[in-house]
């Protein structure tokens, strides 16, 4: 800590802070246009000049370090005059088109001109007139308004790790543009849009929808991934018009990815459900709430009478609030009397929790979003965290800038591989073999922590299981050269601190429980604790919903998703599905569809008429994110409030309220009247859940070739997430749809040639479970023999091809590709 004086006020600052940082941190504003705390000092605009006692020259506060004992003035007549001149010069070329610029009212340049501007300029030169570049989706570049502060370019390349735009040219005609003046094609994170101090970079969806001073801004939590960013939402006349990040708020501290920034308009999709629906014959007819609730109450009661409560099951949702999920949990247990309940986490995050508990003996494994910082080595295993959890991904990039060595194992180039010191290019689905191979080297060379392993169960069996994974054999299995495997093993063992990170989601099929077990073994072998393995929960409330009772109790005979939807035994007669679309999202959709068809009664409450909802007997319209209050718990276990910001669509009602009303119709009040009652009960439920800690153990796993790849199905089908989407929900966003709206099958150039498949032609994709039709794109990104499809698009029905293993994993499927229309 150092002491200094600014404008007569004594303040303290951190060593290494610039004068500007120190000052802003103490709520003393110094004008600035080119500074951002995420970026290195630039010193371009010179507005931040200050007078420092004992210094003859004026100093740029953003690029001068604060020194102990400094006495600083930020507002003197001299500074005012200088700043006036700078603004005057900036305004020589800047078009004064505030009346039709969306930035007006929140534009730094406008504010500073208001503060320092002169009514008349001494300079007369032509103003810039370049046309706006509106070719790309979502983002509009209007270089004539650019003051060349370079913030957008720097945030994009230095912070976002993308480098999509540059300041092109020199002097007067300089423009902000992608290389060669091509159309902007990038992450669409919109970070450049937030940092631009003028109206040179603006959001297209928000364009001309509201003057900034008419917006009512409120904070809520992003509905997409497990990071749980705080969105500052601009609302006007009962409609959310935009989202932006604000520094100092939330876990994201001003950062946002494109999903959070642009994707929330899914709530305004024309396809939202507006009334309850009851199926009469093959068709749905609209019904009143009373009618629909009475119908469900009667049908469920009859089924319970006839088959007993265990014939009813429920599926909760990582997209719904803790309160919604807890209400479902109470409904199924207290009103129905069944213990059959689970959520999609069964195929994703629940596996992580189970493995972590088995390996480390601890309960609950929140991630620490700051964990990458300060680690000597970060090892990302077959996961692109900058896609699944973009803001966590930014932390990894930040760590590499500060000197951490990033090692990635991935089959294709990702943002993380581009920023890594070492990229182990492995074949899809072989991370278990790679990790075992690494541990083979570590144990053979005696590089593990011998003190700690003795206290960990199963060490000897585990050690024996590694024998076969010699570097040569591992190289053969994974495609990573033996020397690289040895090098990585040695580097990991020698490092003073390390972070091993991966992601696991329902929608990826390259890794399952086994990969997490192998990663946990590595951590245990090196004598590290569970905190060295960071696996963030996938969606906005995956972590919270998992902890709100969405799983069978260990001491009761309840059934989970696997038994309910995949078992041939037919104990289930009715199912209650809240905010989930198993037909689309779960592996082997043919099996799921068959199972659902065999049931007597299906209730779905959702915001859309999903493929599953279409099969229901009754559909309840639920209010979406933004239309109801509650809490989400992010991947780091922080409970965060989500606000009701706008009125519910049509007659939709909050999920918890629907369950409360249904319970009342069935003769129970669930003990809840208002949201606070659930929160209260949930709190004591959580307190009861804290189980004692167990023991650490090694969990022996082996590389299993995914699924038979044979002559009938010779291609490996890899399914992964892409940056612009989160689950299938984001595909309903009009904005995100503008960026990527199609599930394109990526195919290697040589494979395409051999099969005579042209770019953009339609192909039939078949596995032993079924077939689908997709448009193919030819790409160098995928290795020979592998095809790639993003997971998100409901219409693509990609899960028709997938298979669920006994362990509950969706594995790489063997598929065949042929021209659409041709029959085999």
């Amino acid at each position, binding site marked *: 800590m150092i002491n200094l004086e600014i404008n007569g006020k004594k303040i303290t600052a951190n060593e290494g802070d610039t004068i500007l940082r120190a000052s802003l941190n103490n709520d003393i504003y110094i004008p600035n246009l080119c500074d951002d705390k995420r970026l290195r000092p630039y010193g371009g605009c010179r507005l931040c000049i200050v007078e420092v006692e004992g210094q003859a020259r004026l100093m740029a506060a953003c690029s001068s370090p604060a020194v102990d004992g400094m006495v600083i003035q930020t507002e003197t007549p001299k500074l005012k005059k200088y700043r006036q001149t700078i603004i005057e010069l900036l305004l020589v070329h800047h078009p004064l088109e505030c009346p039709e610029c969306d930035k007006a009212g929140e534009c730094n340049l406008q504010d500073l001109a208001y503060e320092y501007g002169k009514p008349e300029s001494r300079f007369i030169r032509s103003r810039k007139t370049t046309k706006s570049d509106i070719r790309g989706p979502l983002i509009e570049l209007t270089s004539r308004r650019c003051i060349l502060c370079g913030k957008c*370019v720097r945030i*994009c390349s230095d912070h976002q790790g993308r*480098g999509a735009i*540059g300041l092109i040219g*020199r002097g007067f005609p300089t423009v902000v543009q*992608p*290389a*060669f003046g091509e159309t902007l094609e990038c992450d669409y994170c919109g970070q450049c849009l937030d940092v631009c101090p003028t109206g040179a970079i603006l959001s297209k969806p928000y364009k001309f929808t509201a003057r900034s001073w008419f917006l009512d801004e409120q904070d809520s939590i992003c509905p997409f991934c497990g990071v749980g960013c705080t969105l500052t939402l601009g609302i006007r006349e009962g409609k959310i018009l935009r989202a932006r990040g604000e520094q100092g708020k939330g876990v994201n501290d001003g950062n946002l990815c494109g999903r959070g920034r642009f994707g929330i308009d899914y709530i305004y999709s024309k396809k939202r459900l507006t009334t309850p629906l009851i199926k009469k014959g093959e068709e749905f007819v609209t019904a009143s709430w009373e009618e629909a609730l009475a119908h469900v109450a009667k049908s469920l009661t009859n089924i319970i009478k006839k088959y007993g409560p265990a014939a009813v099951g429920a599926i909760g949702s990582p997209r719904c609030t803790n309160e919604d999920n807890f209400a479902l949990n109470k409904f199924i247990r207290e009103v129905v009397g069944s213990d059959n309940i689970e959520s999609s986490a069964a195929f994703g995050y629940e596996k992580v929790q189970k493995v972590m508990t088995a390996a480390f003996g601890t309960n609950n494994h929140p991630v620490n979003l700051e964990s990458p910082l300060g680690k000597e080595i970060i090892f990302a295993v077959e996961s692109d965290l900058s896609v699944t959890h973009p803001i966590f991904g930014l932390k990894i990039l930040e760590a590499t800038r500060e000197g951490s060595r990033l090692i990635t194992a991935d089959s294709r180039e990702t943002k993380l591989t581009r920023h890594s010191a070492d990229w182990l290019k492995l074949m899809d689905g072989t991370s278990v073999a790679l990790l075992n191979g690494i541990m083979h080297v570590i144990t053979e060379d005696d590089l593990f922590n011998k003190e700690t392993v003795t206290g960990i169960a199963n060490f000897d069996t585990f050690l024996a299981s590694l024998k076969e994974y010699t570097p040569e054999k591992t190289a053969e299995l994974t495609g990573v050269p033996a020397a690289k495997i040895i090098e990585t093993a040695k580097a990991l063992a020698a490092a003073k601190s390390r972070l091993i990170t991966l992601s696991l989601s329902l929608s990826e099929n390259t890794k399952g429980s086994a990969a997490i077990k192998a990663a946990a073994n590595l951590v245990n072998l090196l004598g590290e604790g569970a905190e060295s393995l960071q696996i963030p929960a996938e969606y906005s409330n995956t972590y919270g919903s998992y902890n709100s009772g969405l799983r069978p109790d260990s001491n009761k005979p309840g059934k989970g998703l696997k038994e309910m939807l995949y078992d041939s035994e037919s104990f289930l007669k009715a199912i209650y599905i809240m905010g989930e679309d198993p037909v689309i999202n779960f592996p082997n959709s043919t099996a799921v569809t068959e199972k659902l068809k065999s049931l007597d009664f299906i209730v779905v409450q959702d915001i859309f008429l999903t493929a599953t909802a279409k099969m229901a007997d009754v559909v309840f319209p639920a209010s979406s994110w933004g239309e109801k209050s509650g809490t989400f718990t992010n991947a780091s276990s922080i409970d965060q409030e989500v606000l009701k910001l706008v009125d519910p669509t049509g007659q939709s009602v909050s999920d918890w309220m629907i369950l409360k009303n249904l319970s009342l119709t069935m003769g129970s009040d669930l003990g809840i009247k208002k949201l606070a009652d659930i929160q209260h009960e949930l709190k004591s439920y959580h307190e009861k859940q804290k189980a004692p800690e167990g023991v650490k153990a090694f969990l022996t796993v082996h590389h299993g070739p995914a699924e038979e790849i044979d002559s009938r199905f010779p291609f490996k089908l890899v399914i992964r997430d892409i940056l612009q989407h989160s689950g299938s929900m984001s595909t309903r966003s009009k904005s995100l749809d503008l960026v990527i709206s199609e599930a394109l099958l990526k195919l290697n150039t040589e494979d395409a040639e051999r099969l005579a498949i042209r770019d953009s032609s339609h192909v039939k994709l078949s596995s032993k479970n079924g077939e689908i039709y997709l448009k193919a794109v030819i790409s160098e990104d995928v290795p020979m023999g592998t095809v790639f499809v993003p997971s998100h698009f409901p219409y693509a029905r990609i899960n028709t091809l997938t298979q669920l293993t006994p362990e509950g994993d969706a594995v790489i499927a063997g598929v065949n590709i042929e021209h659409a229309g041709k029959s085999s």
Partner: protein
Amino acid sequence: MSLKVDEIIGVVSSVLDETQKKRGTLIHAFQEIQKEQNYLPEEELVKLSKELDIPMSDVYSTATFYKQFYFTPRGRKIVKVCTGTACHVRGASKVMDALKNEFNVGDGETTEDLAMTLESVGCIGCCGLAPVATINEGIIGEIDSPKLSKMIEDIKED
């Protein structure tokens, strides 16, 4: 093209980190490419960006900062007509117009057959000879009608 970064920047290399080294070679690489190809073709810049691991936008931004680099093919003969004050007074625009008409190109443009590129430039420092033009390295001063015809012939011959 493979870049030997250390070789290019010599002794300075010991005080720079890897990123700085790579960035430092950009201009040199541009010059090399332009020497060979007469301009900076997009494919070459893309290759350079990959090789040096510098984002394409950054490579392009750097290249466009310098007047000496071109992004479209240039003619075999570069004709520069001085339009500085002295030459202007002595009829530079007539010279310019004549060349534009003859070769059907605008200022800064190249003929379709890549025979010549026409450019107007600021004072080239020999005002005494105004109006002045250059063809590649050669200077032609005191241009009058006969000299202009001769110039056109020179440009046309390969």
